[in-house]
């Protein structure tokens, strides 16, 4: 009998894909949530299974071929035991001492006893995602509704999401004290974590949200984390995400942000750790007169590979967005920036500017920049630019001629290069901490 002509051509399953299918089959009944959530998980896993791990022929993943970079899928991390929690107690040192409200997730699970839940401000509510899914929470109905995406890595997150944080700021509430989500991996054997968080900042409310990710070096653990962020009309949200994973980690992160009219939204990525890092930010600027700033700094060395995918969707009129990215690349590191600004037909008077700049410190480092503009409105100002270059030798000589040693001269110039982005961060403590972290990275350079 001849093969049916409707047969779909499916890519061969890789061992990692097969392992993920086994993981899902084994874990699905134990994962948190009722029948609705289970159905959502099954559908999401179907989306993933159809697409498989992203590879070079998927345009959004062109430079980060997960089939090649993720040969194995690690087993799901067990809930943290007392020992793991003890090891996690020192996590988040980079931003310690600033008095931020810390919420700690160990091996993908929210740990209340390590978190600062005392004296919650009126209008601020926090609970764990596992709790919200298991016991029901009106907010979880929003999961998957923030921004439409068929991304396979996000689908995998939806299928396997275990825990995370559900945070809400009531309308008109200004939360002065920044909230920091500390994600820490403590296991010495390679495990995988799928965390999903949902942050809803209602109309006119204000929040500074910091997220940091760290774990042991030399362990090939895998993190797939996603955040859905709703920024209500007139709200003000500043988010800073620090990726400081261990040397062998694979870190895949998705942010889906929906921003309503006249809101202000700022997002800064700061990436220093991890072997393979993917940060994807899909921002849907739904209303009019939104101010958005989406920036990033990557400091990479060795064989690190970091890929930032940015999609800014101007759907309302008179919005303004600024995207500014800086990569400093040492060793044989690779940085990828793919940034797309879309301006819909109704989004007249949009003013959007994107600039990505890479600084190569060696001949083996590599930077890829792929800016895209897609404009359907006829009265807009949009621009993009990208540069890739080495340190300016004239400036280096000028500094050295004043007595500044080569390494310090380079550090001054690199700090200045990165400073253009870090200086835009509103919270002074975070700004200082990241400037210090940059200095530490520079001094650690061979």
């Amino acid at each position, binding site marked *: 009998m001849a093969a049916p002509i409707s047969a779909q051509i499916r890519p061969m399953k890789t061992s990692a894909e097969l392992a993920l299918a086994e993981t899902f089959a084994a874990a699905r009944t134990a994962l948190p949530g009722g029948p609705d959530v289970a159905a959502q998980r099954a559908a999401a896993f179907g989306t993933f299974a159809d697409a498989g791990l992203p590879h070079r022929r998927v345009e959004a993943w062109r430079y980060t071929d997960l089939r090649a970079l993720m040969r194995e899928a690690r087993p799901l991390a067990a809930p943290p035991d007392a020992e793991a929690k003890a090891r996690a107690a020192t996590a988040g040192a980079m931003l310690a001492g600033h008095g931020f409200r810390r919420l700690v997730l160990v091996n993908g699970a929210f740990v209340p006893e390590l978190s600062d839940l005392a004296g919650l401000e009126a209008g601020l509510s926090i609970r764990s995602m596992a709790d919200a899914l298991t016991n029901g929470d009106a907010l979880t109905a929003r999961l998957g509704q923030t921004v439409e995406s068929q991304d396979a890595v996000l689908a995998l997150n939806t299928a396997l999401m275990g825990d995370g944080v559900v945070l809400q700021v009531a309308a008109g509430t200004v939360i002065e004290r920044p909230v920091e989500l500390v994600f820490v991996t403590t296991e010495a054997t390679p495990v995988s974590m799928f965390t999903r968080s949902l942050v809803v900042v209602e109309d006119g409310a204000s929040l500074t949200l910091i997220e940091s990710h760290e774990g042991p070096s030399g362990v090939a653990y895998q993190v797939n984390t996603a955040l859905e962020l709703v920024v209500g009309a007139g709200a003000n949200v500043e988010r800073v995400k620090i990726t400081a994973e261990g040397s062998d980690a694979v870190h895949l992160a998705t942010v889906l942000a929906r921003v309503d009219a006249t809101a202000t939204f700022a997002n800064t990525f700061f990436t220093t750790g991890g072997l393979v890092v993917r940060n994807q930010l899909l921002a849907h600027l739904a209303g009019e007169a939104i101010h958005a700033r989406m920036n990033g700094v990557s400091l990479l060395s060795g064989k690190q590979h970091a890929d930032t995918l940015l999609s800014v969707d101007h759907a309302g009129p008179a919005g303004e967005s600024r995207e500014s990215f800086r990569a400093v690349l040492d060793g044989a590191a690779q940085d990828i920036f793919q940034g797309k600004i879309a301006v819909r037909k109704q989004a007249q008077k949009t003013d959007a500017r994107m600039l990505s700049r890479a600084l190569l410190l060696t001949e083996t480092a590599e930077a890829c920049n792929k800016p895209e503009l897609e404009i359907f409105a006829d009265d807009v100002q949009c621009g993009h630019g990208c540069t890739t270059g080495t340190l300016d030798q*004239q*400036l280096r000589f*000028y*500094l050295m*001629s*004043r*007595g500044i040693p080569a390494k*310090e001269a380079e550090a*001054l*110039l690199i700090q200045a290069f990165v400073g253009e982005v870090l200086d835009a961060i509103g919270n002074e403590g975070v700004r200082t901490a990241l400037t210090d972290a940059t200095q530490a990275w520079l001094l650690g350079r061979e």
Partner: protein
Amino acid sequence: MAPLLEIKDLHAEISGGRKIIDGMNLTINPGEIHAIMGPNGAGKSTLSYVLSGKPGYEITGGEVIFRGVNLLELSPDERAAQGLFLCFQYPLEIPGVSNMAFLHTAVNSQRRKRGEVELTSPELVRKVRELGQTLGINAEMLKRPVNVGFSGGEKKRNETLQMMLLEPYLCVLDEADSGLDIDALKVVSNGVNALRSPERSMLVITHYQRLLDYIVPDVVHVFAAGRIVHTGGKELALELEATGYAQYQNEAA
């Protein structure tokens, strides 16, 4: 008295390129002001770069002894710590690095290298402000990134400020008057003259006599085709103004 600087039979070329310094000799004693004059393209600026250690030049012969050490073996920052200062013809702009932070790093890098106590921030700020006042450099200019948005005159005043702050033994002034109007020239010259002392020497590179009305040299050299071809007193500068360099270019050729 040991000379401050001795250049002996120096030969230098642009890396992979043509020869620029061709058998140059020069001795500068402490406290002396030497002017080097010569036509465009004679290699005057190259001399300043070779002395300060700019990459891209190759020394093919000779030596330079500065305060008893072989200058050519030192990196640019080590030369600076040893007491050499190059006042740039075209000072560079450094976006993102504040003028005050730059001065602080420079001063303390040199002090550290020499094993001296580093200056605290308040000490340095006070010193910089005092010197800045004599040069018409206000607090606003000190806060701004180095030379960014400065006029030509402001940049040169900023160079002079660095020189006064770093207190070098030898100041090499490369076309210090270019881009300056008469008023700015006076401010810069006053700064330079304030630095004159029995221990400190100057090497003033210029192709106009004008600057030497303000910074009066002890010795004037004519530099052509990569070496010194004639030496005289300060009156030589006036003669050159009248006769030009042509006769010396023939002499060199």
